[in-house]
């Protein structure tokens, strides 16, 4: 195993920044009061929770009372879809989403289909972009919700959220966006974008795991997700996870403060990596939009090799990435996102996702540009599919 570690899976999770951790620490053992308790120890926790709510609201252009803390981004997604479906079922039973959503949305849609809701899965083009006009054309009399992700977790493509939001507003349909990959990476103003609901997750921008939030625009009806106590204005019962909420607040504050500088750095790393790999390795393709993508996202398919093997080889060199190959997920089909952008199965199997973060450097890029071509070459030499094409390169 290589001593050097190059972590390139920030879309999966990020480390907790020391400043975030320091902010959280006192709330585990010192200020441990239940935020619902009336005495001062509880009131301290409550105040810290409300401070965090303000920070989350400020980061996305919302009001604090429009922010509801959840246990994760997936929970926020589930709540948005199921909560709106339940609250508006008398108005209609049709929901529009895209073909490349995160499993938290896809699985919620499948569940709602089993409950009698009709779901339209709008296709995407070869860059993974949703067409606002196709969304418009999919709207029916009984459409109650449009849910289109802000940025794709695999290929990084950023969707035309403002245009879709304008269409939703014009047609009087609620609009949810799963912004789990976007918050902390892209500037977001829910009012400007005409978003009615938005999901986010703390561990994608250097906050803790196990904490997320759902923005619900004032005036939008939604069914409670967890029934119990009066927490989160009675909409999501459960004793507040005070340290995690505080960590989320601190992390989102830091992320939005430094966003421009962070984006600039990540785009430089991303571009050098994409250009370098395209120049050095034959028979590859970049997945996702060439420029309209998350600052730190690189997703490339290598023909004639399988993604999990490449991941394991890179692991031996201290490089941690991700793949949309079937074998890395335990499923037998490759990523639904890669298939939806038109990749044939055999190429989709050979995909690699590298997502940069704030600790990555240009030296990391030099290193991966040296290692990845070697590993790809080694695997191709082992591949019976490579025999027929290797002399043509």
């Amino acid at each position, binding site marked *: 195993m290589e001593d050097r570690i190059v972590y390139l899976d920030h879309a999966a999770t990020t480390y907790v920044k020391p400043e975030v951790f320091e902010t959280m620490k006192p709330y585990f053992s010192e200020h441990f009061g239940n935020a619902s308790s009336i005495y001062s120890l509880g009131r301290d926790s409550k105040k810290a929770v409300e401070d965090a709510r303000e920070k989350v609201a400020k980061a996305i252009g919302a009001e604090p009372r429009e922010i509801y803390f959840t246990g994760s981004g997936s929970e926020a997604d589930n709540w948005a879809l199921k909560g709106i479906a339940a609250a508006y079922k008398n108005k209609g039973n049709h929901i529009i989403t895209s073909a490349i959503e995160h499993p938290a949305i896809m699985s919620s849609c499948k569940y709602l289909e089993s409950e009698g809701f009709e779901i339209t899965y709008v296709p995407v083009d070869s860059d993974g972009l949703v067409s606002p006009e196709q969304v418009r054309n999919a709207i029916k009399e009984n459409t109650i919700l449009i849910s289109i992700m802000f940025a794709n977790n695999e290929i990084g493509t950023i969707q035309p959220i403002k245009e879709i939001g304008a269409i939703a507003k014009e047609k009087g349909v609620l609009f949810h966006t799963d912004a789990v990959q976007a918050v902390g990476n892209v500037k977001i103003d829910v009012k400007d974008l005409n978003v009615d609901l938005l999901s986010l997750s703390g561990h994608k921008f250097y906050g803790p795991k196990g904490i997320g939030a759902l923005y619900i625009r004032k005036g939008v009806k939604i069914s409670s997700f967890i029934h119990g106590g009066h927490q989160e204005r009675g909409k999501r019962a459960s004793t507040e996870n005070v340290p995690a909420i505080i960590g989320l607040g601190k992390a989102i504050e830091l992320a939005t403060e430094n966003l421009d500088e962070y984006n600039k750095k990540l785009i430089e790393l991303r571009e050098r990596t994409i250009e370098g790999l395209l120049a050095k390795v034959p028979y590859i393709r970049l997945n996702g939009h060439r420029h309209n993508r998350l600052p730190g996202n690189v997703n490339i398919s290598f023909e004639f090799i*399988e993604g999990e093997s490449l991941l*394991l080889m890179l692991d031996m060199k201290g490089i941690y990435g991700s793949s949309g190959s079937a*074998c890395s997920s335990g*499923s*037998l089909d*490759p990523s639904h996102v890669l298939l939806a952008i038109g990749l044939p199965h*055999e190429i989709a199997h050979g995909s690699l996702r590298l997502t940069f973060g704030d600790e990555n450097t240009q030296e990391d890029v030099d290193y991966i540009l040296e290692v990845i071509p070697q590993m790809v070459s080694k695997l191709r030499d*082992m591949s019976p*599919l490579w025999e027929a094409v290797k002399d043509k390169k």
Partner: protein
Amino acid sequence: MYSEKVMDHFSNPRNVGEIEDANGVGQVGNPKCGDIMKMYLKIEDNIIVDAKFKTFGCGAAVATSSMATELVKGKTVEEAMKITNKAVAEALDGLPPAKMHCSNLAEEAIAAALYDYRKRNGLVDPNEDEGCTGECSACHHSHGREEDFDDEE
């Protein structure tokens, strides 16, 4: 997820390559399914004296290919025909349930190479089924072999 032995065979695969004068060659799998194994056997006096492979696939596919070549070397044709997917998986100290199909592929690659050898030497019963070629849409399924998907959701 993978045993140390699987990782060892993936990291240092034994017998990678081709045998130019192989007298038994079999390829199974389908690129659409994400794995292909090609097995080369050199058989002398009914003994497998050399085995090599080429594989397109995941870590388990590479490791099972490597182990399969190790298992067949030195065996008679008849002994090699009895190697099961379970034996390959056990020799690797087990595979995750979702990866058992890779051991199927290893068994099928051995069978396909042996079938080729027997066919070349007029040893195939005309009524014998060639068996799985690995090209069917169900190439990932069990083909009646032992699998344990208990842990799968």
